């Protein structure tokens, strides 16, 4: 008989797969971005099922809250001509036949490799699953979060400086890229017209 958490997991995983399919198929980039947000929240709930409250918080606040705003901004600022995806199944297969083949080969092989290795007896030896463990008490979850923080600072001490440096570099680099001085002469004809439409009229 399937238990409550297992059912929950199945529901969420179908939700995630549905979100991914929608992300790939919706006609507008903006829509793809908000389907991505939904997928990210679904993944966050799976993290919660793996008993990691703090990673849940990171996933929601950084991914679903922070990165997705960036993606939405980028989608809005660069919106131009949307890619017309083939509507019919046949046309879809015709257009993406080679990609589909590659993707199927990779997927099947990955599944076989991972599942066979996970199911082998060597892997099972001495392990038991903590995924979806609902017997954890509140104290234990407090204890886990606290110990994760302690571990992060004590045993993985370079992680936070590394991330901080990386994010600072990314921030400065992207600001530098975006606010770079540019002149209309450097632009392509399309953009020249867009930024300076009066010129076209004069011509």
């Amino acid at each position, binding site marked *: 008989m399937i238990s409550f958490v297992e059912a929950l997991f199945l529901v969420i995983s179908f939700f995630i797969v549905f979100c991914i399919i929608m992300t790939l198929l919706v006609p507008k980039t903006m829509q793809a971005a908000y389907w991505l947000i939904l997928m990210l929240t679904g993944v966050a709930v799976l993290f919660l099922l793996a008993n990691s409250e703090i990673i849940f918080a990171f996933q929601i606040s950084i991914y679903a*809250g922070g990165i997705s705003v960036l993606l939405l901004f980028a989608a*809005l600022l660069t919106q131009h001509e949307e890619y017309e995806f083939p509507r019919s199944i046949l046309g879809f297969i015709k257009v993406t036949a080679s990609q589909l083949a590659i993707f199927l080969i990779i997927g099947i092989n990955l599944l076989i490799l991972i599942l066979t290795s996970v199911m082998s007896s060597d892997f099972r030896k001495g392990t038991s699953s903590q995924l979806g463990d609902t017997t954890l008490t509140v104290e234990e979850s407090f204890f886990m979060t606290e110990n994760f923080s302690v571990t992060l600072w004590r045993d993985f001490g370079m992680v936070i400086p590394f991330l901080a440096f990386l994010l600072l570099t990314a921030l400065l680099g992207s600001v530098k890229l975006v606010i770079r001085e540019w002149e209309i002469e450097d632009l392509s004809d399309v953009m020249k017209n867009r930024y300076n439409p009066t010129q076209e009229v004069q011509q």
Partner: protein
Amino acid sequence: MASDPGLPFEELFIGRLKLEPWMAIAIGSIIAGSYIMINQIIAPWIERKVMARMQGRRGPVHVGKWGFLQIPADLLKMIGKEDTRPEGADKFGFSLAIFLTGTTAILSFAPLPWGSKGLIPGNFSIGILYVFAVFSIFPPAMLVGGWASNSKYSLIGGFRSAGQLIAYEIPMFVSILGVIAVVGSFSLVEITNYQMNNGWFIGKYYGAGLIAGLIFFISGVAETERVPFDIPEAEAELVMGPRTEFSGWRYALLMMTEYLHLFINSLLFLYLFVGGYDIWPVRVNNSPSFINDFRMNPFVQFLAITLKVYVLVFVAAWMRSALARLRIDQLLSLGWKYMLPVSILTLVVFLGSKDVFGFLIFW
């Protein structure tokens, strides 16, 4: 570990009524939800009354005693309206924005304690972080809603909203980092208990607590997009900002979300700096005494925090009727240039105090 973990209302439901835990959770959630909803009806009424008095008007008077039932009446009216959607709107996005804002606002109430004896819907180890995480869904939701409405006012409002929210989330978080470092926990229960034992943070660390609290409060006002930070919905230029195209029950939900945000921010300010449900602002010893018994009483605590929240609601209404709106560049420079550095300074003072590292030896 000073935390008081436990299921909601556990004394009553599990101890005395011998209910199952899931039933206790359900009943507790219903009670907490009803309480929040009732307050969502009272708070706008108070705000409208206060603003009216400050502007020399009378405010709502017709429905109910002192116009008390004006808000439920408005709600009923809005629910009864036709559900319209602009032409060319993105259907799913249009609904998604409402859905995300509404659920996240209500979900934010989960780790907020209402008393020290297990009066808490869900006691997470990540408490305050959880509230911030859930709250951070709000900017993309506004952006999606603004875009999906297919209206330029909505879109510009959404942009402004997202930019402002991100700009103020950082000083907001930095200003509370000191508190988290001193207490050593994200849990709001532990933060409040620490303040019950050691005095409220707003009066500690030689003014740093006060400044951090003020920064948090101001950022909170900006986060809720209220006056003087209501640029996203500046009615003179943007009609109603990202909310322009929503009407009927959607508009009602959005309005309620706004007041929920006001409530959450006020509550967080209380928990982090003003001792939450505590009534005694300075450090006392833990020996049994009248005042200690009094402040540990769950009803007193519940009343205390409700009263405190309404004081802050009053302050918000006061600000709304007294202050003028900022320009967008003033708003952003206030956030990035002034509040962020100052909040980092207060963080340094918090970290330097004898409760954490103690490198500020002169204190």
